[in-house]
């Protein structure tokens, strides 16, 4: 049995915002419920009000807008995994979603829920971070845009205020000359990440003209590996430079020891995951090592 709560099913996003503002901090949104119900069962959260967004079709879409893709927060992971637009425009997101959970979970779990749950191990986050995605938030004060790098503030915490809902994710699509890849370390397929890494590179004239790396489950929030990126940008695209840049990951992260892995293991594996993600990203970018 779950703790007691009142259940609300608003008919529109606007109504949901109004309801959440009225109900205040004792209300929680539910989308797929695959994080929230587990937490409520464990007694980790017990909201007095639950506001169900799962039938709001206005936040359930994947739209191709030329150089970017817009994904509604209520889009399920299964819809994302099977979307041709995502496979073409943001293949690294598809790669991460494919490795998440199971079919049964993904038919209901949403991308908005994955981000708003703000687990350091949220697998959708590293791919969206290397794509410099923007999150569109609606609330009582209207609409605002938050770069994904500023969205997470701690484990389970985001910049969302009372009454605010994540409405959509805007993702610049991969361009020609870019390549991206995702690496995940788990005990078995579909389990939560012990550590994960996404990389996106752009190579021109034998050099890394752009390099973006993000990691999951190795800091209080998903993070960009800025030291790794700095060690790559403008440098020749050689395996040696890639390898030594990957070692910088240790200085970018702040892992803890928990049931899934120790701090030391995460440190060592972060380097390996970053290297593998970068190597595959380079190959996908056209593969020309300098």
């Amino acid at each position, binding site marked *: *049995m*779950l*703790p*007691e*709560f*009142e*259940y609300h*099913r608003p008919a529109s996003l606007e109504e949901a915002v109004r309801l959440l503002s009225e109900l205040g901090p004792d209300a929680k949104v*539910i989308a797929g*419920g*695959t994080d929230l*119900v*587990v937490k409520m*069962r464990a007694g980790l959260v017990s909201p007095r009000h*639950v506001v*169900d967004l*799962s039938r709001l079709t206005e936040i359930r879409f994947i739209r191709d807008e030329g150089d970017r893709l817009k994904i509604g927060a209520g889009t399920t992971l*299964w819809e994302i995994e099977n979307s041709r637009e995502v496979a073409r425009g943001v293949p690294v997101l598809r790669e991460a979603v494919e490795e998440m*959970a*199971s*079919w*049964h*979970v993904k*038919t*209901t779990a949403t991308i908005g829920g994955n981000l708003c749950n703000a687990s350091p191990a949220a697998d959708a986050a590293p791919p969206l971070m290397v794509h410099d995605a923007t999150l569109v938030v609606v609330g009582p004060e209207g609409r605002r845009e938050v770069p994904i790098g500023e969205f997470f503030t701690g484990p389970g915490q985001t910049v969302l205020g009372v009454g605010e809902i994540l409405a959509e994710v805007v993702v610049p699509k991969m361009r020609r000359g870019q390549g991206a890849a995702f690496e995940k370390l788990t005990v078995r*397929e*579909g389990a939560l990440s012990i550590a994960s890494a996404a990389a996106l590179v752009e190579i021109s004239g034998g050099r890394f003209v752009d390099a973006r790396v993000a990691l999951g489950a190795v800091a209080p929030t998903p993070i960009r590996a800025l030291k790794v990126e700095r060690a790559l940008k403008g440098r020749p695209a050689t395996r040696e430079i890639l390898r030594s840049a990957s070692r910088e990951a240790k200085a970018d992260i702040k892992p803890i020891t928990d049931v899934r892995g120790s701090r030391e293991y995460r440190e060592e594996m972060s380097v390996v995951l970053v290297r593998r993600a970068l190597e595959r990203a380079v190959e996908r970018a056209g593969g020309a090592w300098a």
Partner: protein
Amino acid sequence: MEPRVIRFRLNGEWVRLSVMPNELLINVLREKLHLTGTKYWCGIGECGGCTVLLDGEPVLSCLTLAVDVDGRKVTTIEGLATGEDDLTPLQRAFIEEGAIQCGFCTPGFILTAQALLRENPNPTEEEIREYVRGNLCRCTGYVSIIRAVKRAASEAVKSRRPGPAAGAASG
């Protein structure tokens, strides 16, 4: 906490009942509707024992609020056959391949596999393994389960007649 009246199509028939907002679908199915084929196992989404089909897609009834199925179509293992005489090809294949030992995981596997075969009538072994990775079995070692799904698929392909009438019946 106010009870709510929900109406949904359960195994082909509309049911109407009053549930509390914090009731999970699995509890309503097992305790109020006495459909105990849906198994309560881990309760946290990891095992697939509580799988039901919601509008044809597999979902975990241990993570689904009962209020959420209002107006929708739910299929449980009880909805597939009325008795031994009209088992589905998938159910027969599970028996013939010895894919059932203690049987606790079987309803979840069969419903998942049924949804898979509707989506993809001729899956590869790799695809079957991907689709059922959310279903755990502590007895069989999975080999016989995969074999059963393949057998049901190939029998369905063999028995399918060409022409406009071909295709799976909808449940």
